[in-house]
């Protein structure tokens, strides 16, 4: 299955992406991105975190509604575990720190595309502990 990618980001991603990842669209404007995701149905969607946007969870839900098969990876820096948990509950499959883009962007996209998750084991452990407590 072809690996297509759509990004909601201000980052320059093209130079980092490997050739087998097809970047179909990149928008820094959320509403434009939401319009095109319905058409693109990219297999993986990168969404850069915007802490000033109070409706960020709505954006994640919007992506899931318009393209339920797309797997979302959140890009951000220093986001607390509590906030990541909220976004997991909104359906993200991964979280990649902006500072790790050069090192892990391709790997995280491919892992998520294959149905794996991209979160730290520590975060997953804390979450499981909470759920089963």
């Amino acid at each position, binding site marked *: 299955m072809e690996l297509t990618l759509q990004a909601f980001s201000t980052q320059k991603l093209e130079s980092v992406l490997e050739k087998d990842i097809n970047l179909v669209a990149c928008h820094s404007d959320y509403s434009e991105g939401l319009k095109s995701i319905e058409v693109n149905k990219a297999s993986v969607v990168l969404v850069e975190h915007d802490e000033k946007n109070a409706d960020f969870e709505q954006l994640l839900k919007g992506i899931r509604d318009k393209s339920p098969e797309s797997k979302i990876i959140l890009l951000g820096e220093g986001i607390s575990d509590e906030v990541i948990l909220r976004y997991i509950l909104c359906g993200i499959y991964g979280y990649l720190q902006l500072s790790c883009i050069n090192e892990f962007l391709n790997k995280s996209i491919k892992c998520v595309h294959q149905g794996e998750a991209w979160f730290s*084991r520590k975060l997953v*452990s804390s*979450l499981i502990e909470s759920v089963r407590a």
Partner: protein
Amino acid sequence: MPNLLIASKYKDYLSPWVDAFSDVYSCVVLENIDDIFSGEYDDEKILLIIDAAYIENIEQIGHICEYIKKVVVVGEGVNESLQIQFILSGASGYSDKSVDKAVILRAIAGVLNDEIWLERQVIPRLLKNIVEKNKFSKGNKEFNYEEYKLLSILTRREIEVIDLVYKGTSNSDIAEVLKISNRTVKAHLSAIYRKLNVSDRFQLIILLKNLHVAHLAEDFLDV
């Protein structure tokens, strides 16, 4: 005192692992499974590696975990649902027997360091499981109104603390924002956990998500 206890139904089943671990850890192979329940191994630094063939029902995992805090189940071809059940019932990890030595040594080190060890491809399913449980809304008949009403017993200060926790604010930053001490923040959190019957910040967030309450102050305070 050993680091690793190994329990296998068939003597040779995990013997290659015992050889692999012996360089790094002090291992004991349990001759009798009932030795687990002796109370001798109730120590955070001890990990039990148990053959999945020993597990007759899922409740047994919970029972074993009452005696040994860290348990890793090892099996062959165990399906993902069962792996998740092992973890949710108290095991700290599951590994397929066929993984190589380096991976299992990483798993053991991770579990001894309080992590949960699961194959990466199982994690989304586990997360999905959690997300599925969080689809309730106020308009949905599964919405728990009794839990929602419980929020009204919180004090104004506790509600302010909860809203900051929900935003991912650390205890020290909460103290700064509310101009109170760290100790007072912890006292408020303890009271919140007790009143809402949750044990930590993650459970608190899951509860609020279940109740679709993003900003408690808007619902319960005149803001």
